[in-house]
């Protein structure tokens, strides 16, 4: 066990896997000599050589395409896309190829590629450094899609993702790299060292894909969320003074329907919260599943708390971000509904 922030945990996951499996290679823009703009691959090129930690041209589509080719030749590439906002040039190779190779070849070929990319807001990144694109990947059959909310899960999930024989889109809430963030920009930033999930084993361990985590048990209300919003919702639940159960989804695909459904059947009230644009966001899938499975248990409409249906504006970081106030308003509305 040792204290790690999320960057160190991710770095440790790649280090552990590269040591265990010579087939694991890293690639991406500035990931090699420089160690990545967020330092996630720092030191790994020095340790494993230029041939296993590749600096790539600025061509996201080419990075994913060549990663696919490498995976077909026995390697396990972990490709970093510098920001999730820049993953779209690779969308065709991800949707038409990466997600489909096993299926269209009748199971004869597979492409064990992990794509890591920083997502989400809260860092004044403006509209092209703040996006949360989980919905456009979760809808694509053949992709596994995950998002950790703390260093422990980040390392365990990344190891599990690299060990997967299916492709995994690994979304990293960049606002959480250096510490948990409860949505209040005026509070001094805190690090992970004071957080239980900042305690991370040095060696190999897995956090399996498809398993949600009940980060706060409760009986009155279920809050389903992921990424940065996990911490915002925890704080909001405290402030609202309701006995809320907070579920950290961790995986979008596979989705841990059982944990969600059991909780809502218990509480009868539910909120779904995410940073991404509300319209057509992943919240709709969660809400729909609950409505279908728990309809007769619902005592109030399930509400969605999300980013607005606009791009993420530079000047209005905290007006756009679904902070505690927006969550608390939804909690109140849900608790009062009847």
């Amino acid at each position, binding site marked *: 066990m040792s204290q790690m922030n999320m960057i160190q945990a991710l770095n440790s996951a790649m280090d552990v896997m590269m040591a265990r499996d010579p087939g694991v290679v890293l690639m991406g823009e500035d990931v090699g000599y420089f160690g990545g703009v967020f330092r996630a691959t720092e030191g790994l090129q020095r340790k494993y050589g230029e041939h296993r930690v590749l600096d790539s041209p600025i061509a996201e589509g080419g990075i994913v395409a*060549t990663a696919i080719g*490498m995976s077909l030749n026995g*390697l396990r590439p972990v490709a970093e896309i510098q920001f999730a906002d820049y993953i779209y*040039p690779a969308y065709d190779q991800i949707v*038409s190829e990466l997600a489909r190779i*096993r299926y269209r070849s009748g199971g*004869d070929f597979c492409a064990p590629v992990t794509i890591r990319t920083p997502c989400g807001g809260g860092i004044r990144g403006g509209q092209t450094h703040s996006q949360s694109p989980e919905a456009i990947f979760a809808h694509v059959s053949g992709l596994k899609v995950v998002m950790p909310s703390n260093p422990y899960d980040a390392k365990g999930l990344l190891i599990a993702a690299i060990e997967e024989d*299916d492709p995994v889109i690994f979304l990293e809430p960049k606002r959480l790299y250096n510490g948990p963030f409860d949505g209040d920009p005026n509070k001094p930033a805190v690090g992970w060292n004071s957080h239980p999930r900042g305690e991370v084993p040095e060696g190999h361990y897995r956090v399996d894909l498809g398993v949600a985590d009940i980060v706060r048990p409760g009986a009155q209300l279920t809050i389903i969320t992921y990424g940065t919003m996990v911490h915002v919702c925890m704080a909001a639940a405290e402030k609202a003074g309701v006995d809320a159960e907070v579920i950290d989804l961790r995986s979008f695909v596979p989705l841990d329907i059982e944990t969600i459904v059991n909780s809502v059947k218990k509480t009868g009230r539910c909120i779904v919260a995410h940073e991404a644009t509300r319209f057509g966001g992943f919240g709709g899938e969660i809400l729909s599943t609950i409505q279908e499975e728990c309809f007769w248990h619902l005592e109030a409409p399930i509400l969605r708390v999300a980013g607005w249906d606009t791009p993420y504006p530079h000047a209005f970081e905290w007006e756009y971000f679904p902070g505690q106030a927006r969550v608390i308003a939804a909690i109140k509305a849900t608790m009062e509904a009847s």
Partner: protein
Amino acid sequence: MMRSRLHVPRPPARPGEKPDFSYVALSPAGAAARPDPNAPLNDTEFLSRDLVRVLDDKHRAVGPWDPHLAAADLELGLRHMLLTRVFDDRMHRAQRQGKITFYIKSTGEEAVSVAANMAMRPTDMLFPSYRNQGLQIARGRNIVDLMCQLLSNTRDMCKGRQLPVMYHSVEGNMFSISGNLATQFPQAVGWAMASAIKGEDHIAATWLGDGSTAEADFHYALLFAQIYKAPVILNVVNNQWAISTFQTFAGGEGRSFASRGPGYGMPGIRVDGNDFLAVYAVTQWAAERARMGAGPTLIEHVTYRAAPHSTSDDPSRYRPKDDYEHWPLGDPIDRLKSHLIALGEWSDEREQTLLKQCEDQVNQAWREAVTYGTLTDGPQLDPETMFQDVFKEQTPSLARQRMQLAQEIKERQLKERA
């Protein structure tokens, strides 16, 4: 409207007009020099403008690119090309008879696949397009297997998931063909990069059409291949047309597709794609280059799409009916045959026997393939297989959908019985 200054590249002839291939730059057979595969880029640059040809008008193999193949190899090449063509014709008919939903012929382009494969090793990995059936045949695939894919039947390697002609073979080292153009190009480069990273000397080769060079993946492939000097052969099959669109709409007007190579720092070779020996020779050159670690090669095969784009296409709507008869580079099968005859290694009897063998092989294969089912008759794939291979293990929610479908089918069958 106002006088437009936009340039619109036109094909030389449209329906009703006289075919005109004066735009095709030709070099006499044997004229092009053969640099060392490891020569500096400047010494190979002429290859992107000349046209490498080995077979001359008298059907003799001439010049430095003559690979001096044994007669047995030439005959094998002829057999594979002929078998490919017979297969194509039979499957095209099968589509017309409604036995399969769709088909794509490679008529006139057989050498591009068959000769290239002969110049590589069976352990080299191939990333074909949908018009490279010659590769499947030259690598000795069982024709029955190919037909089962076309039929989406119980023996279909794709389990009924892909359109016809989207074959693959793990043992044959041929990657799954994609319906999305050009995607295989940078994937082949990645495969080759992995081969280099692992210190193995297997190489990769990939093919796409002139029209497909416009896609981003063509650019990514050339870029990554040259940056990391990947051991890969990048083949552009310039058959002059992309469905109804002439190759000038892919940028073939001012410069050859081969000359994209030098722009990225790699050799580009323009070769007579209907000259079996020339295709073999340039592929051999590129393979040697790749294996010695000198890096990738871009090869433009100048050929002609003699057939319709696919069974959904009618070329008479956009090009002269008799276009192909005027194609200056002839037919790859006729030319290799004439060469064998010039060598005294071939005769009409042998020709007839070979043709008969191919036809029997194809017909027999077809009779067997249909016993494994067609889309409409005979044994059928279990629809529940639809939910396999989305992931390595079926997720619970996919299993639930599988059961829902089973229920749907059960009720349908009950209704049908009633």
